[in-house]
């Protein structure tokens, strides 16, 4: 089976954090302990949404030292394909679900002398577990800069400010407060690392600012899970298994491959980990690459595609799968 190992869990708590965000808590159905994880890890939650199988990654926000349960926070995306809507509208305490073992594509570099976290909106979640990890081990000097739309949508901002008044700054869009990036990039001790999780524009803004200020590339860390974008339906030939599949508008290429009974590799399902990389055997048409994994040259070559988030528009596509 592709993906990380699975865990059968029961939903033990669903809490409305604010009008857009709900928090879900999972315990193992067998009563055992959850696997350990490190701050920044995510789990892939499996959903059966009226016959459509959805697997979405969510960052674990609970303490890495607490193995009794996992907690995630999910922002409702009314325009999205439905994973978050399903969690918001259908998942209730007592329900049994399947989630994956934790996978970390956004871990702390514990060699750093100082960590600066930049969060935008729901991008706060990986930092919640990272901050818990750092404070539990007492080995971390950190700063959090958290941009939110309004005070009432600033999930967990109040708790963070209360617990870490000297480490946390919250910026409200509706009050025109901006992260003072240039000032923050200046005067940071050598060996400081930056972590960004938020919308694409924010990630690019912070990374390019840091690069311009001469920060080392290896001290810059970011995570953005891309939800697979819907698009025009298309057909694909799978050369290894000899199947021809149809990718529906609301379906990702990976989901269509899986729906045809083909066990294709994946891990994050968000264009970040590289696991689903697939060779293109032949193609006539245009690729719609949406991943963070392949290089620009690889995107241009037409030889590879990341089926978890990328699509195709054209006459024919043959994949090595």
């Amino acid at each position, binding site marked *: 089976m592709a993906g990380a190992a699975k865990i059968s869990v029961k939903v033990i708590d669903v809490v409305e954090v604010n009008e857009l965000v709900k928090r879900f808590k999972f315990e193992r159905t067998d009563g055992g302990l959850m696997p350990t994880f490190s701050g920044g890890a995510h789990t892939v939650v499996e959903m059966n949404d009226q016959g459509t199988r959805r697997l979405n990654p969510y960052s674990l926000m609970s303490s890495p030292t607490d193995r009794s349960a996992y907690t995630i926070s999910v922002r409702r995306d009314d325009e999205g394909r439905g994973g978050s809507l399903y969690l918001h509208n259908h998942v209730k305490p007592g329900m049994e679900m399947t989630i994956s073992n934790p996978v970390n594509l956004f871990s702390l*570099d514990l*060699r*750093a*002398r*100082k960590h600066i976290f930049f969060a935008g909106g729901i991008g706060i979640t990986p930092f919640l577990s990272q901050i818990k990890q750092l404070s539990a081990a007492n080995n971390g000097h950190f700063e959090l800069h958290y941009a939110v739309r309004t005070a009432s949508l600033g999930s967990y901002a109040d708790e963070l400010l209360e617990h870490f008044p000297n480490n946390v700054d919250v910026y409200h869009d509706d009050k025109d407060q901006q992260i003072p990036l240039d000032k923050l*990039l*200046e*005067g*940071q*001790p*050598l*060996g*400081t*690392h930056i972590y960004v999780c938020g919308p694409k524009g924010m990630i690019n803004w912070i990374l390019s600012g840091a690069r*311009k*200020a*001469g*920060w*080392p*590339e*290896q*001290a810059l860390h970011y995570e953005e899970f891309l939800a697979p974008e819907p698009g025009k339906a298309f057909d694909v030939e799978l050369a290894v298994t000899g199947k021809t599949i149809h990718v529906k508008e609301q379906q990702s290429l990976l989901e269509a491959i899986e729906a045809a009974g083909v066990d294709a590799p994946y891990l994050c399902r968000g264009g970040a980990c590289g696991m689903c990389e697939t060779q293109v055997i032949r193609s006539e048409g245009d690729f719609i690459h949406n991943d963070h994994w392949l290089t620009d040259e690889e995107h241009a070559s037409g030889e590879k595609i990341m089926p978890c988030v990328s699509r195709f528009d054209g006459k024919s596509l043959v994949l090595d799968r």
Partner: protein
Amino acid sequence: MPKTKFEPSIISRPVYGELKPKNGKSHLLIADVEGAQAILDLAKKAPTGFFNQAHIIYIPRHTGETYLAKLQKLNAKQHYVGPSFGAAQQRIQRVLSDAHNGLQIYLAGSEGLIGQAMREAIGLGFPHQAIQTEHRGSKARRMQCVHCKGVTEDVSTDPFECSHCGLSLFVRDHYSRRLAAFQGVCVDAEDPGNVPDKMEIT
């Protein structure tokens, strides 16, 4: 092109490049022996004003006066010349711990100097991949005896005698960034006394 050629080896073995001016708020250049020439070569490519924000730390050792005047002419904002790495170490530590991200680090000269200066920077969390290095001069190595843990500087033959415990040690390419040293392993452990002839390290 790197000025010193090393045989391709295991991944552990450090590889060196050629110093190039990088965009940054300030620049720290640390060199010993012929590494001075790498700084002088970099200076030819550097944008004007580069050395206004630069700090040079240089340890001439056997090269004596050869490069001193030329380095001085670069007019770096700060310039220090010292007799040994040990003598310069405290200064290097202080400069690094007071420095801010945006500093670029350039190391040139012997493997021992490059490795030890790098160790100071990575100990603070600075990524080793972001440090520029250029090897110049002798290929002598800084070796750690894996048995007694003593370090022998400037090892130029293989095998060599550990300067602490006296064992004959085989010079490995296995390198530790944390120790800033290659690993030396007893060469006649299985067959005591059967020590191969010494060869110059190339």
